[in-house]
């Protein structure tokens, strides 16, 4: 197997494992992530695989449950962003003319909106549930993919087979769904992976600043609490390192996956990134 394939397989493996852990969290985690399970700040032992935090909660159980929050933000956000972005790109590129012009100008403005600060303000003031944060991320992130999809659609819309399908009496909706969409799916797939990674990191960032949904266990909040309470200075590595490592691993895996997919669809981009 080539180096690329190894990395690709490893990335798939990591993403798959994370998904499985998120789904099976209640089975895998030995304790309730909110429960007091023994002495606070105790180092790893056979009862607590990764020790306990200052509130005597089991770090391992919190790490397992935290997977849910991160994947949920990433995947729900990316699904919404890619669905809206792809639809807008297809409509814009296919119809062209005034519709295209309108979409592009709206985009010019929308692209200048910085996602993270806006989310920061929103979550600070409204303290929304995690689902709402994910949806909001998706909506704000949907502007990013439109241009790439549109440029691909511009060439597909005048392809001979599209004209041919119209000559058979097919309507616009039918052509867009059956003959344009498959052509942009690979691009949308790459966008999904890269957006998911981006949104996960934003979610961790929000958690680290302590302004996400407080009822949900997430890695950002874990890192925040550990560093605020001097885990670094006191050498309480089991409290700080595991969530940090967990974030790094999933975001690396998604980045590799995104690059590998991009390489597949556009070999001209094949620079040595991985």
């Amino acid at each position, binding site marked *: 197997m080539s180096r690329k394939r190894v990395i690709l397989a490893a990335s798939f493996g990591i993403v798959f494992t994370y998904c499985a852990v998120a789904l099976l969290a209640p089975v895998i985690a030995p304790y309730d992530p909110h429960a007091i399970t023994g002495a606070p700040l105790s180092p790893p032992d056979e009862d607590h695989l990764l020790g306990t935090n200052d509130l005597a909660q089991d770090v391992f159980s919190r790490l397992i449950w935290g997977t849910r929050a991160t994947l949920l933000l990433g995947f729900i956000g990316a699904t919404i962003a890619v669905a809206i972005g792809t639809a807008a790109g297809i409509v814009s590129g296919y119809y062209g*003319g005034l519709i295209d012009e309108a979409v592009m100008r709206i985009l010019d403005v929308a692209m200048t909106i910085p996602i993270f600060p806006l989310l920061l303000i929103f979550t600070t003031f409204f303290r929304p549930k995690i689902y709402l944060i994910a949806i909001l991320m998706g909506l704000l992130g949907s502007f990013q993919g439109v241009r790439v999809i549109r440029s691909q659609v511009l060439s597909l819309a005048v392809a*001979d087979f599209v004209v*041919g399908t119209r000559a058979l009496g097919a309507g616009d909706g039918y052509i867009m769904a059956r003959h344009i969409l498959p052509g942009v799916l690979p691009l949308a797939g790459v966008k999904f992976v890269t957006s998911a990674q981006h949104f996960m990191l934003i979610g961790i960032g929000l958690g680290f600043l302590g302004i996400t949904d407080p009822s949900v266990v997430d890695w950002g909040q874990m890192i925040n609490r550990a560093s605020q309470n001097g885990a670094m200075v006191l050498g309480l590595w089991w409290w700080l390192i595991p969530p940090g490592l967990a974030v790094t691993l999933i975001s690396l895996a998604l980045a590799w996956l995104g690059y590998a997919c991009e390489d597949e669809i556009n070999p001209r981009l094949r620079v040595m990134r991985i």
Partner: protein
Amino acid sequence: MTDEALLEVRGLKVGFPTPDGLVRASDTVDLRVYPQETLGLIGETGSGKTVLGMAILRLLQPNTIIEGEIRYRGRDLLTLPEDDMRKVRGREIGIVLQNSGTSLNPVYTVGTQIAEAVTLHQGLNGPDAWQRAVELLDTVGIPDPVRMAGEYPHQFSGGMRERALIATALACRPTLLIADEPTKGLDAVTKRGIIDLFSEIDRDHRSVLFITHDIETVEDLATRVAVMYAGEIVEVGGAKEVLGDPAHPYTRGLLASLPERGMQPIPGSAPSLITPPPGCRFSPRCGRACGDCRSEHPGLVEVGPGHYARCMLYDRG
């Protein structure tokens, strides 16, 4: 041939706006297609043949400027609402587009795409539509159609792709079939096969508008022939008359340029469609052009029964 025309194009003007000016790809074209006939439309590349075919089905880009009338069974296709036009496309008028290599979507099997045509108009679904697709592939002479229906376009050879496209166009049994250079880029044997296919496909209830620059093909298939030059019809009439006794100097030149008839090319090249020459458009290349030809634009004049030519030689008196 005296009955009502199936398709009547009247004063059709098609213009493409470009930064250099309006390209008049089709300039006041009048053309009739009668029931059950094969009309061969010939002319060199860039003379506006393809544009005419596309304009009939309103397949040109939305920014194209189109004037005139295209009457199909009495209805003007140019003013038809889009929904009604969709019902005409494929079902009433089928078209085999140029470039068979890219006219099939690479991501679907050939059978799926033929079945698509059936599904769009005849309401057949799933296995029924597939069955019909296999039948159609068989009709157009694809060997082992059951297996080939499941293959992708890139697995088809050029001639087979052309046949598959013809099958798609025939899927809903259109009354008029427009074929745009279906023999382009094919070797002699394959070309022969396609010509034979066109002469076989049930002709009793179908008219064909056969667009090509290949005069041999027209000789074999067409009952009538129209010759296009620089966006205009310059000669039209029965195939025997036009090809046997051409009236227009351009048609004569075209025939004389055939390898078996001396291979004498027409001097010069086709004029600009943005600023066509004043008077007769062929005059700068015509050996028989005189003063009037360069200033006056000739109309179509009847030179024999049902045989018209756009030339000053006949327009004088």
